[in-house]
């Protein structure tokens, strides 16, 4: 099969993995080598679906011995199959990189023969890139479920990032849809990677020189909307994964009823806005001090599709407001709808030198319409919680009129 046809099949097969980041790793170019990473990811292109193209994201092969119902590459699917050799992938990566099309490689694979055999093929590709081609760009390798400790340790020697996909939020869903995989096995991989990451960190402390092991850490992916799992289930699992394995990111991928999709799966596409809300909630958990249990306000255990999770929380906790921008703690400011992390930091700095007014906020390009009901600023008159409360209630009465509720439209159409 010619390279172009293989690329078509194996890129198409890889696009269901949502992760595309190329950030979090710094490496200078080797003498005589090609490529580096400088911490910040670069999106080299965007496809008409609005998604970024940063890495050459492909499968080594889409042949697979497993029959995971949600996956287009499962053994019981009629999809066309192809297989690259590690050398072919390494050459393609180099050629694309030289022309500045990509930041590096994200390589995953269907499982062939065994987990370790498959993992060895992925490692061989990365090894060849690093040792033969002196490639200094970004490499993200998939940790094949069930891969041995030795294989994972070696993978981290070449890769910037590793990821073992948890696939579904509830262990029971996996039993139903991917009988050959278990949460225990997948989390075992995460735990092995975590162990090596800690070990590398520890050696840094003792010797001052950090041994190379997946400096961009590990991530995972969860499929949303394939089963009846609620947002509470999903966020609870994410929280546990962040805590237990110190993951850099959990990616959420809205299940799309794929071609040749399997029995027992949801037929309906979940609204795209659900995936978006989960990312927002995830963000609030990691950077805004929210706990997963606070964020879900709907009785059905899901995030509000109409309001973003921060606003939904604010509307449920009116006693918390108004927050005084000149006196409140950072934690309290972070809970104000319409104030982001950067602007909170700016406010904290600014208020050391002068009283912050609404005009100041406007200049920071904060939507004053959005924050006004929730804050007290200088020159705004004495703090009047009742007035603020009144404004929030007004908002509740006429949600559709507020610009802030534009998200409601996206909830209906599924377009963001």
């Amino acid at each position, binding site marked *: 099969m010619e390279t172009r046809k293989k690329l078509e099949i194996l890129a*198409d097969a890889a696009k269901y993995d949502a992760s595309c980041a190329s950030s979090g790793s710094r490496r200078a170019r080797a003498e005589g080598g090609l490529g580096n990473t400088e911490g910040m990811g670069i999106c080299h292109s965007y496809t008409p679906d609005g998604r970024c193209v940063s890495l050459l994201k492909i499968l080594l092969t889409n042949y697979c011995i497993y029959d995971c119902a949600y996956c287009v590459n499962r053994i019981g699917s009629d999809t066309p199959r192809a297989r690259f050799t590690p050398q072919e992938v390494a050459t393609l990566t180099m050629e694309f990189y030289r022309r500045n099309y990509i930041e590096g490689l994200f390589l995953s694979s269907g499982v062939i023969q065994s987990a370790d055999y498959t993992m060895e093929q992925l490692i061989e590709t990365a090894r060849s890139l690093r040792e033969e081609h002196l490639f200094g760009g970004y490499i993200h390798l998939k940790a094949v479920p069930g891969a041995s400790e030795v294989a994972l340790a070696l993978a981290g020697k070449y890769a910037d990032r590793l990821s073992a996909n948890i696939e579904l939020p509830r262990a029971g869903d996996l039993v139903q849809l991917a009988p050959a995989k278990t949460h225990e096995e997948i989390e075992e991989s995460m735990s092995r990677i975590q162990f090596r990451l800690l070990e590398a960190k520890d050696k840094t402390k003792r010797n001052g020189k950090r041994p190379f092991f997946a400096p961009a850490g590990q991530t995972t992916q969860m499929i949303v909307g394939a089963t009846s799992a609620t947002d509470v289930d999903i966020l609870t699992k994410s929280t546990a994964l962040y805590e237990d394995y110190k993951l850099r990111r959990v990616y959420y991928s809205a299940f799309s009823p*794929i071609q040749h999709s399997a029995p027992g799966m949801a037929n309906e596409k979940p609204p795209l806005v659900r995936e978006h809300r989960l990312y927002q909630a995830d963000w609030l958990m990691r950077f805004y001090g929210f706990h997963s249990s606070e964020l879900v306000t709907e009785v059905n255990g899901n995030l509000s599709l109409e309001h973003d999770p921060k606003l939904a929380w604010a509307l449920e906790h009116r006693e918390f407001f108004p927050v005084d921008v000149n006196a409140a703690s950072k934690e309290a400011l972070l809970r104000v709808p319409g104030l982001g992390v950067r602007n909170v930091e700016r406010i904290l700095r600014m208020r050391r030198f002068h009283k912050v007014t609404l005009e100041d906020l406007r200049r920071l390009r904060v939507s004053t319409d959005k924050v006004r009901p929730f804050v007290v600023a200088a020159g705004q008159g004495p703090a009047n919680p009742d007035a603020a409360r009144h404004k929030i209630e007004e908002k509740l009465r006429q949600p559709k009129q507020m610009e802030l509720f534009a998200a409601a439209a996206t909830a209906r159409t599924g377009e963001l």
Partner: protein
Amino acid sequence: MIEARFDGTWEGWRDTARGLLANEIRPQEVLWTQETGQQALSGILATVDTGTSVPLRVPRGFLEDAAVVACHRSPEPWAVLYRLLYRLTHGERHLLEVTSDKDVLEFRRMEKAVRRDIHKMHAFVRFRKTGENRYVAWHRPDHRIARINAPFFVRRFGSMHWAILTPDESAYWDTQTLRFGPGVPRSEAPAQDDLEELWRTYYASVFNPARVKVNAMVKEMAVRHWPTLPEADIIPKLLAEAGTRVEVMGAARRESAAPFVPETVELPVLREAAAVCEGCDLHRHATRTVFGEGPLDGGVVFVGEQPGDLEDLAGRPFVGPAGQLLDEVLREAGIDRESLYITNAVKHFKFEERGKRRIHQTPRGVEIAACRPWLEAEMKILQPRLIVCLGATAAQSVFGRAVRVNAERGQFLPNHMAEAAFVTIHPSALLRMPDPAMAAAERSRFVEELRRVRAWLG
């Protein structure tokens, strides 16, 4: 009013500003004028002695950010930069912390615009190969960033010979030295690179036609950059075809018995529903559905591959030659067939017609997967302790993955549908073995494995 003439570069401005500051010239007294060409080099201030300049005491990072702002294409930066510099050195040392200040806002607005342009240049430069290890790109940045941005490309592509051409200025790297030259028009850049076809193939393959969001794309990849992006050529085509591709995806038939499986705890109800299953194409040619049979409470289920010619006619599993062999072997192992529930992974006969004969064909993965809901439903009702998989097809259905019988046979393996599942061969494998000695050896191994099944069941 003082006219400050300088050459329009960051360095020129910096030297001039130092001189002005040393002479305590207030910002509102200065009119900044860019000059180009020879005279600019000497054209500092006539009235100010720049030799007395003192070292600048400004907050860390200011000069670095100011050098970025100086790349802004508009004439605005110079006055703003000097106002900031003056205020920072005249009692407002913390000015940059006051992000809502008008000068600071202007400064940051321009800095952001230039930094974004720098970042987009990192992203959108497209090298074209012109010879062995030689690459040339032509890029049109919004601001004058060719010089400030060149070191990035040196760090990354230091082992290549490259040139990055822009309309303002061009950068050349020969693996040792970075040189700059005048800007050049796009017509001087190479017209194509053979690899671009492969890149476009990749780009087209990662696009999901079910999620068209042109605005999101254009926001990050402005149309003005498209002419130098090889992949942008096919955007109109991808968009034009998106609708059709989505329809094709939607129309792709999903083979599955799931819609035919009723929610029930009654096996007869399940059997009745299975009789009219059209979950895959096999029902079109087979005579009938052959469902499982046996006691509900035997604790053990045997799963075969699919009904054969005689089973298809009789409507019962394992009544043909393979069934008779199974009966014999079970007797030898001391297992009563009447105590077993026996079923198949695929419930319709798949065959090829050759003359009057119907020749067995192994079901494909799609057919195994399509039929699995029936097996799942049977197991949910039966709740067996043990599932015995006869052959690879049965094992694939029970374990949800490809199983190599010889690697995994003879073990009591964990399974989601029962306490354990056990893999052994299908009796028809014995019938197909040409070598009688080998067949005999296999047969006794088969019996021995079934004895272990009996022992396990207790």
